[in-house]
C-alpha cells in the first residue's frame, strides 16, 4: 500500500513528487509514457511569466507570483538553466497604450514588481530587432526563461533519490475508491494507495470525472512553434509578447534558456487530446504573426517545429486541491499556462495538503539537491582539459552540434530516473537538440543506450516503446 500515488510525470507531477519526497511516505509516480516530461511539459514556451496577465484573485495569479519569485533560487539549487531576461508586451498603435496601462494596473494588483510602460524609443534601444511599427511596450523585468525539460527532470531526480518510485509505460485506466484507500488500475495490475494526486495534464478531467461528481471538462488548445538555431539565439534578448487576446498571450518571440530562438504559439481548440502534430497553416501563422513584432525572421535558421496542448478547463482557472466529495483525492487539473512557472509552488502547496492529511513526518535523510552534474561545452579550454584527465570519456564528443560527450550521456542514462530513449538523452544532455537534429549522433546515442541498458539495438526507441528506430537486420526480409 502506497501513501501517495501521483498520476502524471509532467512538470506538475514531478514538482509534487519532489515536494512530498521530504516526508517519510511511500510514494509512486505513474505515467503512461516511457519517461518524465513527455506531455505538455516538453512542448511549451518555457517562459517564467511575471504575472501581469492573470486575473487578480485567481489561482493562476497566486501561483504564478509565488512561482516566479522562487524560480531563481530554485533553479540554482537544482541546476536548471534559467535566466531572468525580462519581457516586453508590444503595442503597435498609440491607441493601444491604455491597454498596456490596464495590464500594468492588473499586474501591480497581482503583486508584480517593476512594471513600466516604455516609449517607442526606449523599447527600440533595448531591442534593435523589433519592428519599427512598435508604438510602446510594457516592460516586466521579472519575466524569465527556463528549460522546461530540466525543470521537470531535476525534480523527478530529487524525488527519486529521496525514495519516490517512478513507474513508466503505465496507463491508469480506472480508479476505484474504497473506504480508506484507492485501487488504481494500471495496465493489467492494481496499485493501492491511500491518496491519489491527479497531475494528468490534458487528461486530468477524465481522471477526476471517474471519482468526483464535480465534473471537469478540458479542451486541448494546440500551440505550434518554430525553433531556431543558436546562431540566431540573440536575435532578441527579452521575451517579446503581443497584447493578449481571449485565447491567450499571443505569438511571442523569445530566446530560450538554452540560447535558441523560439517563436509561437498558435492557439486553437481541438478535439483530439493525442494530436500534437504541426500543420502548414499553424507554422505559417506563427511566422506571419511574429513578423509583426520583429524586423525580419531568420527563417533559414529554423531547426524544428513542434506543438503542445494546453489543458484548458472550462472554468478558466487552475483546479488545485482535494476534491470536495472524494477524500484523499487531489487535483492539479487544468494546469495550462502559467503552469510551468507555477509548478514548483503548486508542488509545495499540494505536498503540504497531502502530508498534513496523512500526518506525515519529515525525513531525516532528505537530500535537497542533485548529484553532481557536469556540462562540458561551456567550460574553458583549461577546465575541459582537466575534466578529460579526470575521466577520459569527456574526451569523446558524441553530439558535435551541442558538444556533448560520452561521459555526459552515460551519466544521463545512469542518474536517478535516467534516460532510456533517444529523446530522453536529448532532453537531459542536448545531444541531438542542435542544428542537425540528431542526424550525426542519433546512431551513436542508440548504440550507447543499447550498451548501457543491455538491450538489443532494435528495442531502443525514440520515445515510447513503439517508437523504435531499427526494424531488423539487413536482408532479413528478402
Amino acid at each position, binding site marked *: 500500500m502506497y501513501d501517495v500515488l501521483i498520476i502524471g510525470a509532467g512538470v506538475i507531477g514531478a514538482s509534487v513528487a519532489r515536494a512530498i519526497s521530504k516526508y517519510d511516505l511511500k510514494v509512486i509516480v505513474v505515467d503512461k509514457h516511457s519517461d518524465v516530461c513527455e506531455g505538455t511539459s516538453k512542448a511549451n514556451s518555457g517562459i517564467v511569466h511575471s504575472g501581469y496577465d492573470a486575473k487578480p484573485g485567481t489561482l493562476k495569479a497566486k501561483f504564478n507570483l509565488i512561482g516566479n519569485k522562487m524560480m531563481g533560487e530554485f533553479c540554482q539549487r537544482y541546476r536548471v538553466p534559467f535566466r531572468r531576461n525580462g519581457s516586453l508586451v508590444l503595442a503597435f498603435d498609440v491607441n493601444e497604450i491604455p491597454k498596456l496601462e490596464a495590464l500594468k494596473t492588473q499586474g501591480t494588483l497581482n503583486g508584480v514588481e517593476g512594471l513600466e510602460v516604455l516609449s517607442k524609443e526606449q523599447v527600440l534601444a533595448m531591442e534593435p530587432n523589433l519592428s519599427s511599427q512598435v508604438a510602446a511596450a510594457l516592460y516586466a523585468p521579472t519575466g524569465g526563461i527556463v528549460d522546461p525539460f530540466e525543470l521537470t527532470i531535476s525534480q523527478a531526480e530529487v524525488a527519486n533519490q529521496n525514495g519516490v518510485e517512478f513507474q513508466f509505460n503505465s496507463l491508469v485506466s480506472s480508479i476505484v475508491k474504497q473506504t480508506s484507500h484507492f485501487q488504481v488500475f494500471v495496465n493489467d495490475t492494481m496499485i493501492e494507495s491511500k491518496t491519489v494526486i491527479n497531475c494528468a495534464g490534458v487528461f486530468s478531467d477524465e481522471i477526476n470525472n471517474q471519482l468526483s461528481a464535480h465534473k471537469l471538462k478540458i479542451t486541448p488548445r494546440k500551440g505550434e512553434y518554430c525553433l531556431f538555431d543558436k546562431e540566431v539565439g540573440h536575435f532578441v534578448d527579452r521575451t517579446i509578447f503581443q497584447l493578449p487576446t481571449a485565447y491567450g498571450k499571443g505569438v511571442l518571440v523569445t530566446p530560450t534558456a538554452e540560447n535558441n530562438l523560439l517563436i509561437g504559439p498558435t492557439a486553437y481548440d481541438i478535439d483530439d487530446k493525442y494530436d500534437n502534430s504541426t500543420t502548414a497553416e499553424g507554422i505559417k501563422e506563427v511566422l506571419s504573426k511574429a513578423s509583426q513584432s520583429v524586423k525580419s525572421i531568420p527563417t533559414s535558421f529554423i531547426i524544428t517545429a513542434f506543438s503542445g496542448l494546453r489543458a484548458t478547463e472550462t472554468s478558466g482557472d487552475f483546479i488545485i486541491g482535494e476534491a470536495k466529495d472524494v477524500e484523499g483525492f487531489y487535483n492539479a487539473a487544468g494546469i495550462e499556462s502559467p503552469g510551468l512557472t507555477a509548478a514548483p509552488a503548486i508542488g509545495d502547496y499540494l505536498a503540504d495538503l497531502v502530508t498534513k492529511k496523512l500526518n506525515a513526518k519529515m525525513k531525516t535523510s532528505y537530500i535537497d539537491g542533485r548529484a553532481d552534474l557536469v556540462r562540458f561545452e561551456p567550460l574553458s579550454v583549461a577546465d575541459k582539459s582537466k575534466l578529460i584527465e579526470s575521466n577520459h570519456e569527456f574526451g569523446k564528443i558524441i553530439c558535435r552540434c551541442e558538444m556533448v560527450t560520452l561521459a555526459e550521456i552515460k551519466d544521463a542514462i545512469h542518474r536517478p530516473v535516467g534516460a532510456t530513449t533517444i529523446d530522453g538523452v536529448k532532453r537531459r544532455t542536448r545531444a541531438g537538440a542542435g542544428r542537425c*537534429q540528431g542526424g550525426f549522433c542519433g546512431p551513436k546515442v542508440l548504440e550507447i543506450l543499447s550498451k548501457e541498458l543491455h538491450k538489443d539495438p532494435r528495442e531502443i526507441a525514440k520515445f515510447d516503446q513503439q517508437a*523504435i528506430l531499427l526494424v531488423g537486420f539487413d536482408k532479413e526480409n528478402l
Partner: protein
Amino acid sequence: MINKDIVIIGGGPAGLAAAIGAYEAGNKNIVILERDNLLGGILNQCIHNGFGLHTFKEELTGPEYSARYVKKIKDLNIETKLETMVIDISNELIVSAISENEGMVQYQAKAVILTMGCRERPRGALSIPGYRPSGIFSAGTAQRFVNIEGYMPGKSVVILGSGDIGLIMARRMTLEGADVKMVVEIMPYSGGLKRNIVQCLDDFSIPLKLSHTVTKIHGSTRVSGVTIAKVDDLRNPIKGTEEYVECDTLLLSVGLIPENELSRKVGVIINPKTQGPIVSESLETSIKGIFAAGNVLHVHDLVDHVSSEAYLAGKNAVKYINGLLEELKMIDILASDGVRYTVPSTLNVNNVEDLTQIRFRSSDVYKDAYVSVYFDEERILHSKKRILTPGEMETVTILKKWLIERPNLKTITVKIEKE
C-alpha cells in the same frame, strides 16, 4: 603546445589529398586530425561503385577509393591522429583538439587546411508538418545503419529528395529487402547525377515523382504514412493533388550543408550561396594561412574533384609557408545569369601556374545553352552544353597566358547564355 607546419582538420578524401599535396610540395611537417576512428570520411559508408573514374580510370567503391589514399599516407609516413576532434581554431592558428586518450591537444600551425566535409540538412530545415514519430532519418544516417551497423531502419520507405544520397539509398534499401515506394522531388528535375537515376531508380522501377513534396507526416509513434502533393511553379503544394502513401520510414535527402562551425568561429567569411568559405584561386580563405577544400568548401558530387581540389590546397599551403603566395586579390570572379556560385571568387595572376579552374553550378536546368566566361566586357569562352543541371558541378579552365595578355583585367564573369 606542439608546433606543426600544416594542420589538416578532417581525414576524409579531402584531408588525405591535401596532406599528399603538401608533402609532395616539400613540407613533411604535417598532421591530419580526424574525429572518427578511421580515415576516409563519408566514403566509409559509400559501399557502392562509382568512385575514382576520373582519377584511376576504374570503378571503385568508396572504401576502395579511400584505401588508396590511406596507403599513400602510410607510405609517406604522414602523421594522423584518429578519434581526435578539433574544437577550436584561433586567429593565431592555434588548433585545439580533444581525444579520449590524450585529452586536450594544441597545435601551433603555420597553415591550417579545413577539410571537415559536410552534414545533411534535417527535417526542421524544411518544416514538414505533421507528427514527430520515429522512422524519419536523413539518408546518410540510414546509410550508416545499413552499411556499417547492419540494421534496417525501415521496411517500407518513401524518400524525399533526389540528391545522390537519396538515389543511392533507394537502391540500397531495395537490395536489403525494403519496399521503396517512391522518391519525391520538389523541383522539376533531380538533384542527383543522371547515372544514379538510371542505375538506382530506373533499374529497380522505383518511381521518381518530380514537382512533388511531402506535405504531412502521419503516425504518432512510428511513421505510418506520408501525404504527398504536387507543387506549383513557386513550389507551393497544389490543393486537391494530395495523395496518402503508406510507409513506415521517410528518408530525407534534402541537401548537404558544409560543416563550417569552426570556420565561422574563427571569423572565416562564408559565402551564403555555398555555405562554404570564400576562397582565392589558391583556396585560401579570408584569413591568411587558412585554406579549405572538399565538401567543407562547396558540396561536390564526384570525389575525384574533391581529391584534386584538396591536393592543390595542400600545395598552396606550402607555398604560403614559404612566402611564395601573393596575398593581393586582384581579380574578382562573379557568378551571374544562371550561375549560382563560383569557386574561387578571387584570383591573383601571379599565383597561377599554367592554368586555373573555376568550378560552379547552374541554378536551374538549361538545355542546349552556352557557358560563357567574360574577362571584363570581353567574352573569351563560349562553349555549348547539351544540358546543365544544378545536380552536376561544372568546371571552366582559364589559361594563365590569357590573363597575362590582359594586365588590367578587373572582373571575370561566368554566365549561362541562350546563344
